[in-house]
């Protein structure tokens, strides 16, 4: 047992959590890229766990065309709703699926727990690198050399959704900078509305805003993690929104609730800085406002700037222990780069592709009636290329989010500030990393 424990510690680049004594089946592969050779003879069956709605219809297209590599779909609730925990349990029990859907912000936690297969030796994967938008590739390689821990699947470039009719009627110009946005907020409030609803419990939106401003919450130099939730850029964003909250210029309805939908449906909230998939949230949550919305680029911190944030997105990763990384990688590349798969994923589940030519999908070139016929995806296609590339997620995002969200809720109801909340989240995160024996630089 002791010898094995030592081996585990030595072979994994980053320390594992408390080594469980029950996992007697997990033989360790040396660090670095695993080999990537085709299976010798016979058809291969892969398992793939994903919670994308109707994913099996997409996989069927692959299965029909590739009798030698059959993919079996397993499903479950969304990642943080239980599927990630299941992945960890399955890794421990040695029966993880070959492939799994993992959001970008959860990928580092699997990396730290040594749960992923490095696909850097898989030629189909490295060949596809240039087909993906640069920053999405960074999300799966963590900026390391010879490292690819997943294939980017979708992305959530952000832009400004706004009520075109209301802005025109009130004679307010569409804000192009955050300064103009704050000025517009005052006028919107005077006209009886709120410029937007501040997401008090879904920290991902705030992360996207900080991402745009140049915030860098986590970094990893290969041995240690640095946590900085209060860097200059993030502080700027936090103070900006704190000011709007203090002046009661934004509403603070809990996101993803019917109240929240209703605020948009009744025209109480005039804008939403959100990701590309938000287009669908508005059209289905606020059906009475059809034709009255439009999309503009995200407001900028410096006039004339062209920087966007990102909110959401996931990858297709190959788990450690998969016996067929070569075949799994082929499937993952097909799923996330081929026009037929991307078209289906967009059609069935509103996924916005992470590839450069994904923006040319016919479905994404059309005008959308709900947005007054505007070709809204052109805005997002531009935004996708403007997302700054070096934002890294930490390995314990669930607890970071939970802590920040508690603080944000308190700040919205008047106790403490957003900055206090971030400070607290930072302490919690560092404690959490330490308790999992993940080295932290201080």
């Amino acid at each position: 047992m002791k010898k094995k424990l030592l081996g585990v510690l030595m072979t994994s680049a980053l320390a594992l959590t408390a080594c469980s004594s029950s996992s007697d089946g997990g033989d360790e592969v040396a660090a670095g890229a695993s080999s990537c050779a085709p299976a010798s003879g016979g058809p291969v069956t892969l398992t793939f766990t994903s919670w994308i709605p109707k994913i099996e219809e997409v996989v069927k297209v692959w299965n029909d065309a590739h009798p030698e590599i059959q993919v079996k779909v397993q499903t479950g609730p969304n990642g943080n709703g239980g599927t990630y925990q299941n992945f960890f349990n399955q890794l421990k029990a040695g029966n993880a699926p070959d492939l799994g859907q993992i959001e970008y912000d959860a990928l580092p936690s699997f990396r730290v727990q040594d749960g992923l297969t490095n696909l850097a030796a898989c030629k189909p994967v490295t060949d596809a690198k240039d087909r993906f938008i640069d920053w999405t590739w960074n999300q799966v390689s963590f900026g390391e050399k010879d490292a690819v821990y997943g294939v980017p699947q979708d992305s959530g470039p952000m832009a400004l959704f706004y009520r075109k009719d209301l802005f025109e009627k009130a004679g307010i110009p569409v804000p192009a900078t955050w300064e103009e946005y704050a000025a517009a907020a005052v006028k919107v409030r005077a006209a009886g509305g709120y410029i937007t609803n501040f997401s008090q419990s879904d920290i991902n939106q705030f992360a996207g805003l900080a991402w745009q401003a140049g915030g860098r919450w986590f970094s990893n130099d290969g041995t240690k993690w640095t946590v900085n939730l209060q860097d200059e850029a993030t502080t700027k964003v936090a103070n900006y929104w704190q000011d709007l909250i203090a002046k009661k210029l934004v509403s603070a309805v809990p996101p993803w609730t019917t109240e929240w939908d209703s605020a948009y449906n009744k025209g109480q909230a005039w804008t939403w800085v959100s990701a590309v998939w938000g287009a669908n949230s508005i059209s289905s949550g606020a059906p009475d406002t059809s034709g009255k919305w439009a999309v503009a680029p995200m407001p900028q911190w410096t006039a004339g700037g062209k920087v966007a944030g990102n909110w959401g997105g996931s990858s297709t990763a190959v788990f450690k222990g998969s016996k067929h990384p070569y075949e799994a990688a082929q499937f993952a590349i097909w799923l996330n780069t081929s026009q037929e798969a991307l078209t289906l994923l967009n059609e069935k589940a509103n996924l916005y592709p992470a590839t450069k030519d994904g923006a040319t999908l016919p479905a994404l070139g059309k005008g959308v009636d709900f947005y007054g016929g505007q070709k809204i995806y052109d805005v997002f296609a531009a935004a996708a290329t403007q997302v700054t590339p070096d934002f890294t997620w930490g390995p314990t995002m669930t607890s970071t989010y939970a802590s920040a969200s508690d603080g944000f809720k308190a700040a919205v109801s008047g106790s403490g500030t957003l900055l206090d909340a971030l400070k607290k989240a930072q302490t919690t995160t560092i404690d959490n990393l330490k308790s999992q024996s993940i080295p932290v630089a201080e």
Partner: protein
Amino acid sequence: MGIMGICTFYFLVPIWWLFVGATKSRGDFSGTAPLWFADFHLGQNLSELFAYRDGVFLRWMANSVLYTGGAALLGTLLAAMCGYALAKYRFPGRELIFNLVLGGVLVPATALALPLFLIFSELEATNTFWSVFLPSLVNPFGVYLARIYATASVPEELLEAARLDGSGEVRTFFKISTRLMFPALVTIFLFHFVAVWNNFLLPLIMLGNERLFPVTLGLYTWNGQVNQLPELRMLVLTGALVSIVPLVVAFLLLQRFWRSGLGAGSVK
């Protein structure tokens, strides 16, 4: 009386809300008063629910009934036999076994889900019907209840008489004792039924195949996709309404026996 009224109100409002919500169209749901009807849309919601993804919801309902009904029936039988044996037979280790079972009552099902997953993984039996069904059979509280009730309601003299008349032990159990214990069995069955129906974590951990999901897990999965496919919200609501029907039916049908059990003997 007033307190009872308040409690009833408190417990019924969520169900009322659910019922009203399930009758609305998606636009009305977010736009109209939550506790009163808008356009009556229940039929459409139901047919959408049953048609979505080739009727996977009906499959989930069937699974739930099978997991729950099957496990509760078999589990009640096992608990009754075990409790009866502990009450009526003297053998070495009897109290030890009973105390172990009693200890089992203290262990929540949630805490056992992960160890069970690891055990089933060893047997390569995860993601199967049995991985949810077999653990659901176990019901220590039922054993406890059965023992207490058997001690109180099955007289030794009766068993003696049965033995003298040449009835075997198994026959005595099924022909005489279960009849006497019937109200307790109904109680055990109901408790067990509800416990399995509500045991969410076990299927969450064990199952990856959508066709095997119970309705609770299925609806939870849909609810997680609402951000992506907002039209699912109405299906989740309608599904939740439909999914409580079997529970309500089970209680309405069985509460008669239950009440007669609690009352029996009180005036003798």
